[in-house]
């Protein structure tokens, strides 16, 4: 701190008054806004007694006394709450919804009170029991003095010279040559984080003749028994009903319409008995397009509200989805159950760079 001399225009005369000559030691300290460490007092001349800068007692003793009592009560309350917390932990079992709710209330309330009482107590303590004080500390320009900067530069240059880094270009260049592949190597090491995508995103597990199962019940469906025109059910490919990776792409929905409602661009050859099947994976970012409005025949994705026109090839009516939901070609097998004619004829789900 001595580098700036004495602030406040005071001549710097260290021989006369080396430490904080703002006031005579022993006289009462001015109440407010004094300089802390301002006059070289902090420079470690330990022999000098450090003048008192914080008042020993609060300005309003009566108020402090009241505050002291309040704070003590708060601290006692905090202690009781903590004890209550321990008691609630020991006394209250968990293991059912009701028990957990009881336990959560007791533990949470006691914990909150324990912290809150401590917090309020500490704030009252600082505000009403500790004496008011406002000190001023000087700042110094962060930029170092020219001498220091020069000395640093010399030290740096000396080190650079001693290292021979500048003088010996072969060392320098080979070091750089060594570091480049070393930096690439860890990236290569991440290669086995996963397989390459290849063409796997282009297809789903649907194959010709594969039955559609109701999601959840896992039962096959006949066109006759699916007799709720206007309803929508989620279907999964038989054999993959518990395979999340397959379902993430292959999940589909079937909707049955009144005769004459279905129209192009729906491929009518791919429907059975006015039942149409679309991919459930939204073409925006892949959420399941799970909401169906019976009156308007709109399929809505709840994530970002892309809206598809179900009777007309699930074309996009609104929202950020760029394409209709792909249609799965349907037929029935010899037992009369709904099956796929083939896989989807285009990739399902969101866009990707290699999408054909």
């Amino acid at each position: 701190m001595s580098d700036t001399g004495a602030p406040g225009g005071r001549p710097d005369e260290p021989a006369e008054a080396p430490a904080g000559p703002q006031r005579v030691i022993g006289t009462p300290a001015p109440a407010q806004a004094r300089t802390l460490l301002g006059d070289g007092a902090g420079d470690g001349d330990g022999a000098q007694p450090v003048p008192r800068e914080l008042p020993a007692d609060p300005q309003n003793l009566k108020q402090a006394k009241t505050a002291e009592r309040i704070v003590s009560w708060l601290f006692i309350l905090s202690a009781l709450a903590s004890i209550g917390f321990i008691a609630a932990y020991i006394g209250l079992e968990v293991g059912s919804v009701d028990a957990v709710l009881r336990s959560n209330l007791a533990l949470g309330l006691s914990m909150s009170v324990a912290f809150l009482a401590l917090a309020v107590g500490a704030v009252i303590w600082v505000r009403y029991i500790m004496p008011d004080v406002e000190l001023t500390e000087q700042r110094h320009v962060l930029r170092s003095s020219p001498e220091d900067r020069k000395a640093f530069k010399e030290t740096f240059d000396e080190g650079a010279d001693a290292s021979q880094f500048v003088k010996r270009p072969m060392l320098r260049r080979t070091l750089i040559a060594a570091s480049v592949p070393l930096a690439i190597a860890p990236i290569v090491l991440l290669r086995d984080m996963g397989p390459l995508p290849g063409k796997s995103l282009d297809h789903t597990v649907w194959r010709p003749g594969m039955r559609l199962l109701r999601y959840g019940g896992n039962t096959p469906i006949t066109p006759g028994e699916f007799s709720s025109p206007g309803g929508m059910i989620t279907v999964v490919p038989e054999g993959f009903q518990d395979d999340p990776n397959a379902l993430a792409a292959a999940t589909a929905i079937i909707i049955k319409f009144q005769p004459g409602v279905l129209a192009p661009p729906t491929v009518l050859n791919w429907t059975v008995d006015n039942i149409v099947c679309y991919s459930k994976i939204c073409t925006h970012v892949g959420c399941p397009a799970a909401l169906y409005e019976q009156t308007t025949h709109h399929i809505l994705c709840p994530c970002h509200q892309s809206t598809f026109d179900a009777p007309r090839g699930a074309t996009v009516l609104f929202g950020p989805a760029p394409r209709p939901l792909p249609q799965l070609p349907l037929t029935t097998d010899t037992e009369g159950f709904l099956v796929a004619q083939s896989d989807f004829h285009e990739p399902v789900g969101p866009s990707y760079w290699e999408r054909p």
Partner: protein
Amino acid sequence: MTLTEKLIEGTGSWLDDRFHGAKGFRTLFRKIFPDHWTFLLGEIALYSFIILLLTGTFLTFWFQPSMTEVVYHGSYTGLHGVRMSEAYASTLNISFDVRGGLLIRQIHHWAADLFVAAILVHWLRIFFTGAYRKPREVNWLIGLVMFTLALLEGLFGYSLPDDLLSGTGLRITEGVLLSIPLVGTYLSYFLFGGPFPGNLIVPRLYIIHVLLIPALILALLSAHLFIMFWQKHTQMPGEGRTDKNVVGAPTYPYFAAKTGAFFFFTFAATALAATFAQINPIWLYGPYTPVGISAGSQPDFYMGFLEGSLRLWPSWTWNIFGHVVAWNVLIPALVPLGLILTGAAFWPFIEQWITGDRREHHVNDRPRNAPTRTAIGMAAITFYGVLWLEGANDVIADHLNISLYLTTEIARYAIIIGPIVAYWVTKRICLGLQRKDLHLLEHGVETGIIRQLPTGEYVEVTRPLTDEEVAALDVKRPPALPVGAAQGELEVPPTGQRGGLGEVRERAYKVLTESVPLDGHGNGYGGHGNGHGDGHAGEHTAVPSGEHAGDGSGEGQEGGGSEAQEGGQA
């Protein structure tokens, strides 16, 4: 000497013998922290982070970061016999079979929301008061990185329980990754270890969530705090506060006690929320399956703007050379956050370039005293706010009973118009507030007393401002210095004569430094009462008081010259 005194002195002496700490610790004890309520916002973020570390550690004692499928037979009977991942089952276990588990889980989640919220408002405080200015640019950048990490950390933590809601969040993450040109599918396959969802994502996110990002945040946080400590805290304008000092209470005991109390407040607030406000009840959502989804699913609030952005943007997609560029995902996922973060990262340097102000700043601006900056900030908030509201447009449409699509259409216009209106309105408000300050400085505070003079004339009685009030109001408008003047670069030709870039700079300078001049106030400012940018100044700016009345030529005293330059160009 009492036993306690002996103990303290003995310990202190023992430590000093070994660490030579007496001097350093004395300085530390007497370090001054200025006081202002907005300085607590960063502390909330800090303490939420500590709460997150404590509660998060507790949760790891039981959480199983595994996607191995199990059939549930635990205490929550509603899901008996349901197939689910071990991650989900262990989260149920924490909630229903570990005493205090639900409480700590909910504190963890609330603290995460509070963490991001506190960072956001702390960030705004720094911006609006100009506390990012030299020498604090590096801390500003560190803060931006920590904010980004906090968003990621939140998203990943939210994804760990593997419930229906969090899995849907990951599905959207996959969709966003896939949209990235050239490498999108590779990134997705590498992250998920193959096709979505795979069985690796939870363990991978787990180690990133509990080790990698917290360690990064901790390191950056330490640097953030150390730099703050080293450069000393900024202070709000007031009596006796200058760029060369710091006024406040010492660390020991004042700041230490206050900040300790604040930690308890933060903990109490999150504990109260966890006690009375249920958050993320994963047992109601069910385990994740790519087949299902629940309507009205909402992410945590800090992801809302991304969700809204994805909802708002239209379905533009390109097919070029046999490849798909999914602008409909790419732009809304990357551009808004990119705009805000990049803009924020460059802003301190852009402002320095425009104003030529290379001085150190330790006294904060009141937002009104930097109208253009404040207006830019409000425009950014509006931009973010529109996206955020659009992220909940289904809820809004439901409550207001209007069409879902109408809310999106409105948001598509509001995202453009909103920020412009916010900019303009904010700037007018700031200039108006400056005029009010000027009025107070010149005429004092209206007391509400009307006095009749012996002549019959009525006058209003005003009270002159106290020194303290004057100090808070009478702030030198900071950027009012000629470009290049800061470091004596006066040989540089005047602005506007240095080609295209110089012209851009001069224009930006005029916009950025637009302020009501502190005319006629006897403080050394030049007394020129002529208008400036907005053309309204004449109506409100008082006629300069007597001794300065004729001083409108622009040859003001020290400090007036630059304003004359500004005024002359109006």
